[in-house]
């Protein structure tokens, strides 16, 4: 599936929720199923700077595809991470770089977060894309 196909699927999934609390509830459930980050990567050096909630990030490239290992102390953030990984993890650097993440707005997720938290999540997203760019130029 393309990143667009997955995003459309997520948007469909979120259409069934009539209110914000149901969306949050779903995000928490998704977060519970997100595998924990490999303990060797759960270190202060891998924390995303400026995030309100401690969020660990690690990326690798294998067979030309970028894989992300991300974890957070917040269940809601973990839910959001699950969605980001569904769309971006395991793809070629160029694919990640060129993906416009429209599902965040269309699934009504941007409005679900306070400006501070949205800013934190934006930092995570930026990190995912900047690592993909660096893998693409072989700087990592």
């Amino acid at each position, binding site marked *: 599936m393309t990143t667009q196909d997955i995003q459309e699927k997520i948007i469909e999934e979120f259409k069934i929720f009539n209110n914000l609390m149901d969306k949050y509830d779903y995000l928490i459930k998704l977060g519970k199923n997100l595998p924990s980050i490999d303990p060797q990567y759960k270190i202060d050096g891998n924390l995303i700077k400026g995030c309100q909630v401690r969020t660990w990030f690690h990326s690798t490239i294998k067979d030309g595809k970028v894989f992300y290992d991300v974890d957070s102390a917040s269940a809601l*953030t973990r839910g959001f991470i699950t969605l980001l990984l569904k769309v971006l993890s395991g793809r070629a650097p160029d694919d990640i770089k060129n993906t416009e993440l429209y599902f965040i707005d269309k699934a009504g997720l941007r409005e679900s977060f306070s400006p501070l938290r949205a800013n934190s999540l934006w930092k995570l997203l930026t990190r995912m894309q900047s690592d993909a760019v660096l893998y693409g130029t072989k700087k990592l």
Partner: protein
Amino acid sequence: MFGIKSPDKKSTFDVKRIRKDFPILHQKVYDHQLVYFDNGATTQKPQIVIDTINKLHTQHNSNVHRGIHYLSGQITTMYEESRQKIQNYLNAKHDHEIVFTGGTTASLNLAAYSFGEAYIKEGDEIIVSEMEHHSNIVPWQIVCDRKGAKLRVIPFNEAGELLLDEYKKLINDKTKLVAVVHVSNSLGTINPIKEIVAIAHEKNIPVLVDGTQAIQHGKIDVQDLDCDFYAFSGHKIYGPTGIGVLYAKERWLNEMPPYQSGGDMIDKVKFEKTTYNDLPFKFEAGTPNYIGAIGLGVALDYLQSVGLDNIRNYEKTLLDYATAKFTAVESLKLYGTAVNKVCIMSFLLDNAHPYDVGMFLDRAGIAVRTGHHCTQPLWSHYKTEGSIRASLAFYNTFEEIDYFCEVLNKIKKMFE
């Protein structure tokens, strides 16, 4: 005072009537009636303070201590009257012991810099406590780094009470100052300042008190406490932002060098040497926040019209009620269970990150603070990163506490 209205004295405490004085409380947030439980971060302003600030800008604005003209004279009088109101509120001996600053952080930085310059040298020690706000740690750390001095720390017990026996052990011949918080912003603990001061004074060591979270909860008498410095912010006591106070005994203000320099703090400026103005102006360089200072004076008038005893008694009933209700919420862990405390409820819910809980509360129209509340060492003590903090004021109600706990129970279920 030039047409600035004084509040009417309220004969009995009626929270419904009090709430009418605070226009911001009567709004809906996400379709819910606002429940403002973030008073530790900032308090809301009564209408009389809002009206005063507006009136000062529309009818009285002019720079203080500068002009011979009508408006400048008028506003200077109001500014200095406000200083006297604060002197009276704190029961300071002299009005020139009241220095206007930008807030507690500015007050503490002033004290740390000027006291440090005057008295701290290599090998000296400064005592703070484990429950200090960062603003009463970092300025002293900077002094210690600059002078080669050492910071010593008074620990606290699990309830969040300072260990005075440990404090006594920290005091020695090298101790030059004790800087301690009156009421913990994270736990609500009321520290025994009078006793802390008495212990330090036995060895002639001055004591600075961070009164940010104490000043709004009852009468403060700096002469009775006998503290050497007392710092607080206007916005925590129902006054405007950007204004604060450093009270200091005359002796220290005379001996300490200025912190900032510029206009108004000078006596004579010559290229060879500058001499400084009298107290307190030596410490008030530049155009002060006179609108804020006058607004703060009106906020104190307002509190006194409500009655400081009324406020203290009502807040105590809120605390007792909230403690009983919060502890009845399953899997809620309360931090800060000192015998003497104000109505600050810091807690965690099992399995739920404070930011997530804070977000759900927000969507239910409830304003709280989440995180470390600028007291990271305090949370290191509890081996956690922070908490959800509900900090109540005298305009909060029992019904709001009921609603809060009802929402908490719903949130808890979502994380099970």
